[in-house]
């Protein structure tokens, strides 16, 4: 009886691990999309309203879809209250939220590199930086979507089957 329960636990754990890794692959394109949507909102604030960054970031935080809203809210808070530079505020906000998100280091790098250009140039050049960041994020998103298509199911099956293999080997 105990052996059966143990085998079931091993199988369920392996399946959950596989499911979790697969879930990361599925979440990444969605999270990249919310990031892009938030960047487009910020672009509108900067382009149309020439809104100063602390206020623009707060407005993006209110309107952006989850989970990107919290990232921009944190950056706005750091910029406003801790008197940090924009690049540092965005970098720290990214570092704080990175463990909870499914993005890769390359994805975060795009956001942080964009943060280094934010607020440092005139409107024309700022728009160019937005376009570059959005294009890079779109590439990352296409790659994430492809990875999700091929890897998510693979990891899900690998978890279930790996668990079964362990059970067979040890049973």
């Amino acid at each position, binding site marked *: 009886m105990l052996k059966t329960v143990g085998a079931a636990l091993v199988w369920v754990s392996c399946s959950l691990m596989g499911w979790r890794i697969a879930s990361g692959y599925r979440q990444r394109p969605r999270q990249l999309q919310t990031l892009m949507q938030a960047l487009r909102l910020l672009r509108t604030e900067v382009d149309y309203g020439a809104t100063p*960054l602390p206020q623009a970031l707060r407005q993006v935080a209110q309107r952006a879809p989850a989970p990107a809203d919290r990232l921009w809210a944190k950056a706005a808070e750091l910029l406003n209250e801790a008197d940090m530079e924009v690049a540092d505020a965005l970098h720290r906000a990214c570092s704080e939220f990175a463990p909870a998100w499914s993005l890769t280091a390359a994805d975060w790098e795009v956001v942080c590199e964009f943060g280094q250009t934010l607020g440092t*140039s005139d409107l024309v050049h700022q728009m160019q930086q937005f376009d570059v960041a959005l294009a890079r994020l779109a590439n990352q998103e296409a790659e994430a979507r492809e990875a999700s298509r091929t890897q998510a199911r693979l990891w899900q099956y690998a978890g279930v089957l790996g668990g079964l293999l362990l059970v067979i080997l040890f049973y």
Partner: protein
Amino acid sequence: MSKRDRHEGLPPCPWPQVLRVCPPDVQRRLQQLPVAVLERVEELRFRTGQPLQLCSGTWDRFLHRDGGLTERFEDALLVTEEHVRRVVQVATQASLYAVEDELRRGFVTMPGGHRVGVAGRAVLSESGGIRSLRNISSVNVRIARERMGAAAPVLPYTCDRETGQPFSLLLISPPQCGKTTILRDLARAWSEGECSGQGRKVAVVDERSEIAGCVDGVPQFRLGPRTDVLDACPKAQGMLMAIRSLSPDVVITDEIGRAEDRDAVLEATHAGVSVVATAHARTLEEWRARPYMEELFRARAFDRYVVLSRRRGPGTVESVADAEGRPLPSASPRWRPEGSC
């Protein structure tokens, strides 16, 4: 040492906003200064590699590196590139794209209406105009103060004593004579009915956000209950917008001098709206000699010209003239800086 001599607790208004743009080490030293000194300071001058200068029109000192003030620049705190960069970053709210037009004109207005003037290397456009400023090496933080009653010496010239009809009024003076402070108080006085006994609708066209000191569109200074503010709006366009959409009795704006300003003032005065404005010059004749301004004078656009100086302190009324430039008798009690804010 009295409480007034030695600062205890928070520095007086408007220092919290000014201190916020200062680098932490400068903040600390400024906070240690006596209130009487802080009340006197009109400008903070940051120049890379030079001592940090605190000054008003007739007085200046350097900030001592160990705290307090000094007249010897050898003992003064030297301004670094990091100091200047920090002031510019906070003053522009880290958003150069939002202030590029202002930077092109050499200054940025920060929350509270304080003007941050900058000097650096100009980047020119193909047409030869200034595209932007880079390598900013000097920053001048001009502290805006709200002085209730600052307009008192000017009030007798603001309207027709018999009909109560608002006069179009031009305040003329060199920089740092209190024009904007008086203009701000005039907006409040018109709006609250201090000028003619009856409150009037006032439209403030605040191109550089100095008169109302708007933060997120909300005026930081008391401008009265009948005042609308067109914040950061170009003067000429703003005056026409105000006339068309806000039906003001008085339009108030700062520093006229361009051809489009002249056209807008004429348009307003011909539309039956009184204009209260300021201009840089030492005398009425000097103002008339400026481009486009003689046409305004000839068209009798203004009913009264008030020339200000700081001979007996900021806001000293030197002379008052009517629409044809004839002098009128004037009395100029100096307004008290105490008890403001």
